């Protein structure tokens, strides 16, 4: 393991806390990434620093407190420390779903969101040019026009586990992923029409 990867792993280990109602059980990383938990109250909030084009899965457990009070929301500030550029991002839920209305995916303006979409279990965006600074899932900086992603707890109960995967894959991987999402969306539309 390279020295900077060791340092990243150490930072990730040091930075993981569980201050929110939904218990953060840590992150599973593929490649080099640092996850920092800034969650407070019912807001799941993270900084994710990718040192390579890879993915991070955030793992949680629900507590009884999650079912009272404010809705559970999610946001993340995602930095490109790979210096390679993100062509896009895919956010995938497991064990939970997004509630309406959908949240936002925005950038710091050095690259634009050229396309985006979401379903109950996924959200995605593509960037143009490839993003090399940072982007925002939801509204981590409390900016006008941006909104956090609300998580739907219907049918769930305390003790249930769920995860949120954030992936910034290689361009070719991402092309396949977006194509797959387009097919899913198309099928969903046909079913709705039918």
């Amino acid at each position, binding site marked *: 393991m390279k020295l*900077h990867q060791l340092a990243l792993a150490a*930072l990730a280990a040091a930075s993981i806390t569980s201050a929110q109602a939904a218990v953060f059980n840590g992150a599973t990383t593929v490649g080099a990434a640092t996850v920092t938990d800034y969650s407070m109250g019912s807001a799941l909030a993270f900084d994710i620093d990718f040192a390579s084009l890879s993915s991070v899965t955030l793992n949680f457990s629900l507590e009884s407190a999650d079912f009272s009070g404010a809705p559970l929301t999610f946001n993340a500030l995602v930095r490109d420390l790979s210096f390679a550029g993100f062509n896009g991002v895919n956010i995938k839920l497991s064990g939970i779903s997004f509630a309406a209305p959908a949240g936002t995916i925005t950038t710091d303006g050095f690259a634009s969101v050229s396309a985006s979409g979401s379903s109950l279990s996924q959200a995605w965006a593509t960037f143009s040019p*490839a993003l090399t600074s940072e982007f925002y899932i939801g509204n981590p900086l409390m900016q006008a026009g941006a909104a956090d992603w609300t998580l739907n707890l219907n049918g769930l109960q305390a003790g249930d586990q769920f995860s949120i995967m954030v992936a910034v894959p290689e361009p070719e991987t991402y092309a396949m992923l977006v194509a797959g999402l387009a097919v899913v969306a198309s099928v969903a539309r046909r079913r709705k029409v039918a």
Partner: protein
Amino acid sequence: MSIDNNRRSLIKGAGALPFLAALSALHSRDALASTVTSLVDSPYGPVAPVNDLTTGLPLLMLPAGFSYKSYGWTGDVMANGKATPGSHDGMAVVAADANRIVLVRNHERSTGSDATFFGSPAVYDSAPSTVGGSSYSAGGTTNLYFRDGNWMRTEPSLGGTRTNCAGGPTPWGTWLTCEEVGSDAVSADGKKHGYVFEVTADPLQTTGQPIIGMGRYAHEAVAIDPATGIVYLSEDSSGRSGFYRYIPVDTSGVPGSLAKGGTLQMAKVIGQNNVSVIGAGVGDVHALEWVTIADPDANRVANPVGPTGIVLSNTVAGPFAQGWTQGALVMNRGEGMWYHEGKIYVMDTSGGAAREGTIWELDVATQVMTCIFSSANTLSGNNGDNITVSPRGHIVICEDGGTVNDQFGPGTRIMGLTPEGGTFIFSKNNVNLTSAQLTAAGKLGSLAGDRRSSEFCGACFDPTGRFLFVNIQTPGITFAITGPWAKGPI
């Protein structure tokens, strides 16, 4: 939801990662066979005009995939309501704490009519340049704040200084700004110029006190060895430039520690007197010793004579004369400097056989300096000035020649130095604007003109390595550039 104010506090630690990753040698020069540096194709690809994300104007040429935001133009209103001074020059990131990056930017202005010193909280010399006159020291520094990929504001920090050319960051998060003044003239209150000043990230902590022990001469830049606290300094005095170091008495490394005094010394080649390194080629090596400058504040001296009788005609700075008489070496015009991984890099802007620039690499442990860049011609290097080392461990050069006309046309350049020792074009100055274009963009129409020969300066990276900050001196613009850095060595 509420946001923790310390949300981004780990940026400082995370920012160190690219630096940690750059453990490989800065340059593997084994393959170098030539004594001059040649231009090679850029690993980032060819450059082409790219529109500024702030104004929409095509200010820079960049490789595909790179984008930028301009800020802090001459005349832009600062946080205190006053106009941003012009003549942008040296610059560095001095702080990257929770939620923000702070840069300090030099303004290489000599004298002018502004007796408010653009509202700077610290003013060194508030008197007219001459008794009864209405001209004042017009240089100084401004602090720029950058947050979440966006420029936030500009605040003045130091005024009443002159010709603040370059400088250098300290390991403790301040900026040393250098007056490039080669004159014994004093202002109406007897203040001399040609000193180094320390500027803090919080402008209100800047004292305006000169660090006299670092000498009084045409300072250009500094670079600090963090292991010893020794400050290395360059001098920009054509054909009469020394290479200096300052050993502080207080090595605690806090704001103000350098001003407590120290010993100024000038480089000398071991066993040889008054060596000229002006015409150096790649691979030239010199082992250094240092001679002490007894009076760093001494006045200029005419025609100093070296130990073996070599006379330098005309006047030289007082510190230089003291070094020369002890056999110290001479550079042509010392310019930008940077520290990286145990090495000090210094640009001699008119060094080399072609007088287009050389870069010396000083190993601080062995005190041996090696020429790693010597421009073959205007194309491979056109009087490099400020330099920095990227977080990925390679040298970035700001050019000041203004005469190059390469395959992309005229325009000063930001150059990169490859691991193999060649230079490549990373960016070109494309500022050629009409008054109407500027006015439409909310800028001063008086800045109009073809500015493509104006120097790039102040190149530096944010601690994460994502943003390259750089200035174009005239009309005075600061840029934040980002892109797929991993495609090349920068």
